[in-house]
């Protein structure tokens, strides 16, 4: 656009100011703080503690494992969902039904599960109906993973669905004309062509799953310590910002790694 220089500057200034103040400065500050201990002394001890004490490494391994399981479960449930919805007549309407739960506050959904999974909640009642004895479900790893997957599923369905609607029908027809079975069409055509969707789904689901501290508090009952829970604890409870920042830096690095592995042109959490 050939506008006057001064006029252009008008658009750049607020946005660049935002980039500097709320994107670059906070990331720089968190890296800076990670080199200070609780007495504001410059030190590398936070990193030493992180890599030498078994607790932090186990915690990192655990939260990667949890995030991995959450991501795998949501792909397994979402992929067939996206596949079927993309073939339905009123698919726009059905996909709207997928989006709608994402407009409900996350905390309310988590709260619903406190009721559903409690000792005399609906799930245990159903279990008893089928002759399975009631069990403690709240505050277990399984329930944490399942509830997290529940919350992430719409965010996994949407990118996969988008990449499915991008596939032209003629590919599918060509493949069946050439004698491919349904299974071959799925594994040789549809899945490879929806890889970008799966990748952006992984990006959207895996990274937040590393830091779902409200879920690990409400559903995991303080037993599950993920990287996110540890950051929250160091910042808001023990006030050891240095250690919190160090864990934050580890989180940022894992985020960058995930981004590098799943990088596609698509961006945005919910697009």
């Amino acid at each position: 656009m050939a506008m006057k220089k001064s006029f252009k500057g008008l658009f750049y200034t607020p946005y660049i100011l935002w980039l500097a103040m709320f994107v670059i400065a906070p990331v720089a500050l968190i890296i800076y703080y990670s080199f200070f201990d609780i007495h504001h002394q410059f030190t590398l001890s936070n990193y030493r503690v992180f890599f030498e004490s078994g607790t932090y490494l186990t915690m990192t391994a655990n939260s990667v494992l949890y995030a991995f399981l959450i991501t795998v479960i949501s792909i397994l449930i979402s992929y067939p969902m996206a596949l079927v919805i993309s073939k339905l007549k009123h698919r726009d309407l059905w996909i709207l039904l997928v989006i709608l739960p994402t407009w409900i506050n996350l905390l309310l959904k988590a709260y619903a599960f406190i009721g559903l999974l409690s000792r005399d909640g609906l799930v245990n009642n159903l279990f008893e109906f089928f002759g399975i004895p009631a069990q403690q479900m709240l505050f277990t790893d399984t329930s944490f993973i399942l509830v997290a997957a529940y919350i992430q599923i719409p965010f996994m369905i949407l990118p996969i669905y988008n990449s499915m609607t991008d596939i032209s029908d003629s590919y599918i027809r060509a493949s069946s004309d050439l004698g491919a079975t349904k299974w071959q069409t799925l594994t040789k055509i549809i899945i490879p062509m929806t890889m970008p969707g799966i990748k952006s789904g992984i990006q959207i689901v895996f990274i937040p799953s590393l830091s779902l501290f409200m879920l690990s508090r409400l559903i995991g009952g303080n037993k599950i310590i993920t990287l996110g829970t540890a950051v929250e604890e160091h910042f808001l409870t023990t006030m050891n910002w240095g250690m919190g920042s160090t864990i934050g830096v580890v989180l940022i690095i894992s985020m960058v790694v995930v981004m590098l592995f799943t990088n596609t042109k698509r961006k945005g959490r919910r697009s």
Partner: protein
Amino acid sequence: MDNRASKLGKFYIIFVFLLMYMPIFYLIIYSFSKGTTMANFDGFTLSHYGELFADKRMLAIFLDTILIALLSSLFSTIIGTMGAIAVHNTKRRHQRETLLSLNSILLVSPDVIIGASFLIFFTALKLPLGFWSVLLSHIAFEIPIVLLMVLPRLDEMSPSLINAAMDLGATSAQILSKIVLPFIQPGIIAGFFMAITYSLDDFAVTFFVTGNGFTTLSVEIYSRARQGISLEINALAGIMFVFSLVLVGIYYLIENHNLSSGRKLDRVEVPDR
């Protein structure tokens, strides 16, 4: 694979949809229960809604949340739209790519990182935690999504529209207000709504930067849920569900309206691309 969904497929999606909606309806159904837990439905009552409306503290928090959502969306829409125009105007490709990568940092960062780093930032600036820190944080994390909603519309716009206007002697301000803004308006509105939902949905960032005096609904629900079940929260869930339905409705009305008027605009466009 034939192009219709099989019976099994339809059965599967109905099953998953039931699972997806069950927790939400479970919450709402129990908001009408006479009991005090989400275990046995003890008969119909509206008393939890009555309690909720009589709860002055809750009402104040509700209004604060709406205020934060509207104000932050307004400012982030303005700055995000300006950012989109700035990104669109970049001459070099790598410059644009760099700006877009920086833009997406806040979109992909885990919430705790955004919250923790903003907390450090506000403390370093000696800004007291409360309404202003929450408002600034919300503006900050909503800007990138607005930019992503507006930028595609700008990229769709044919340069000949601007060239024609300039040839006809329009000033930069006129080009902006008469051509660019009307053309990208659907993107701006979509961005504004996305910003509102991001704001209403946020818990983690607010939780970090809110301090002691100020709360939003998400933070309040969290602290009450940690104390256990209170059917007043269920009533709140019912109201927020209706509220989201209304928001979704408005959003899709505007979207559809824009789609039809957007197509008209596209047809007017000079056919050179």
